[in-house]
């Protein structure tokens, strides 16, 4: 039997345990991507931009 206390109140705030579970899952999902670090394409792109700009300055 499910007691009244175990049910989330429809209009009330979420219990702290529910909020913390949602928070944990959200951060775990997010950190999964964050932990992949910086893909090479972004390092390469910034380096190429720098080289391009240096070349342009050299031409001036």
């Amino acid at each position, binding site marked *: 039997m499910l007691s009244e206390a175990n049910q989330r109140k429809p209009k009330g705030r979420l219990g702290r345990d529910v909020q913390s579970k949602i*928070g944990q899952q*959200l951060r775990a999902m997010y*950190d999964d*991507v964050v932990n992949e670090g910086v893909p090479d394409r972004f390092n390469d792109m910034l380096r190429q931009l720098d080289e391009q700009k240096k070349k342009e300055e050299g031409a001036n």
Partner: protein
Amino acid sequence: MPLDPTLKEQMLTAVPSLRAFAISLSGNVDRADDLVQETLLRAIANIDSFQPGTNMSAWLFTILRNLFRSEYRKRRREVEDVDGSYADSLKSHPEQHSHLEFNEFRTALAKLPPDQREALILVGASGFSYEEAAAICECAVGTIKSRVNRARNRLADLLSIEGAEDFGPDHATRAILAAGGSRG
């Protein structure tokens, strides 16, 4: 002039979190990476409008969000069911998400209205304060708070969480323990 090395470093430091935010907005890794790349190019082109000493990450998030929004609005004019297409993009690229364990959570997240989803992610995952999230979303702090609350309530409903024991690895662990039978 080449980009100031300090600014470049700050940009690269923000990339992993920008990607996570972009993936959660677009639901698609390839599109997310294009969005991040476009954000960096836009930032470099407008670097003079960045105030040194202020939060580079928040500035980049603002640019990324605006880029996504303008693309989203464009797509909405072209495609009727934008929310549905987001959900479909999740279904059609499950292999892009390395950990299947998050699928149920991602699907629930995809069902949230975009305003609520981004508010929850900025505050709950990216680690921005309510004030910073409000600045990024260009709305009032109270609006962010209410979006985050509604997002949490909706997620709890979608995931049918009634108590901590109903959710996540604890549940699985308990099930295994229960299946193991009682000893002694």
